[in-house]
């Protein structure tokens, strides 16, 4: 099974995102083992070296840790760390693109806030 990797981001970054998504949605829980490089490479049809690089990214960020001879595990505070990083990304990327679109449509800040409140109620 292969995921379509878009060209906007390097593939190893997308590998890291997939693992992060799976930690956030509960596919992997704290101190649980994640897929091996070989399994991941097979499942998503990506070069193993790229998978290693993506996993390395998460190890550096303290989201995953290595058990010698066993494999990669999810850190106990992984979820918090990911959320913190993604909040940052949410603020910098998503909100700024939302605002630039809102500016084009001449929406006032209050209007935007009202819309968000509406949507969150649903």
């Amino acid at each position, binding site marked *: *099974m*292969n*995921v*379509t990797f878009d060209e906007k981001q390097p593939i190893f970054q997308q590998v890291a995102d*997939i693992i992060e*998504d*799976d930690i*956030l*949605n*509960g*596919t*992997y*829980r704290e101190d*649980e083992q*994640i*897929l091996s490089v070989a*399994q991941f490479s097979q*499942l998503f049809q990506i070069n193993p070296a790229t998978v290693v690089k993506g996993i390395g990214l998460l190890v550096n960020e303290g989201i995953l840790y290595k058990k010698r001879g066993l494999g990669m595990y999810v850190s106990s505070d992984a979820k918090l760390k990911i959320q913190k990083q993604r909040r940052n990304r949410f603020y910098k990327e998503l909100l700024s693109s939302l605002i630039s679109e809102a500016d084009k449509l001449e929406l006032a800040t209050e209007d935007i806030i009202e819309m968000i409140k509406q949507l969150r109620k*649903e």
Partner: protein
Amino acid sequence: MSIVLSCEKLTKTYGRTYALRDLDLQLEENVIYGLLGRNGAGKTTLLNLIAGGLFATDGTIEARGKKLGKGAIPEDCCYVRENSKLFGGARLMEILQFAATFHPHWDWAFAHKLLQTFRLDPDKKIKQLSRGAESLVGNIIGLSSRSALTLFDEPVLGLDVLMRERFYKELLEDYANHPRTILLSTHLLDEIAPIAERVYILDEGSLLLHEEMNQISMAAYLIRGHSDAVAAFTEGKRVLHTESYGHGKLAAIFEKLDDGDRLQARQLDIALEQLTLQKFFSYLIEGGR
């Protein structure tokens, strides 16, 4: 919309093997169709039957409402074979002159322009041409013929990426100026996706799917998330293929999604992404069994 060509219950057998089985197909005027299928699915057999090169075992072909007799060719039709079997000793220009006599709407100015675009020397002999150049000769004939019904069998076989792009560009440009019905078979699905308006997908001689390209791209998704969430989301939807890993699950679905579905996906923490035609095709064919 007037129908240029329609096949009904078209069947072709070789001994006990069914190359085509009960195939229904309708080609409307001025539409570009993609004809897709794996090797041996019956694509070339179908094109050969339409172009009168083979006799159907059963079923009928009608061209503009008139039934075609055995070996008859639809009026104003150009068939570009995958293996063109052009006379090797002839020069390229002689082949074009020969082809021009068969096609009433032949455009010489366009043919000359294409020779330049495809960097072909008209004085060369056919047998001196590379595999790709041979495909290009066929493509020049197919395009310059301006036939109301043009059939291309793997026109981009052996072409490098630049020549393929040039071919698609010329095809679309000329189609825009001179609309006609085009049926084109290919294995390079992601390249035909933006070109074809509709696709016919054959498998083992039968029609697997006939759909508008837009409909496919709007309904073919790969979803990824927690197994329970994916199971809840895919309930009642057409699932082509699934794969599990730990508590996670991937699923390829073919279902038009509305706003409610998207909201549900967000709430279930499911990642949704569109499938390319190529991936959709492989899940459709492999996942079905």
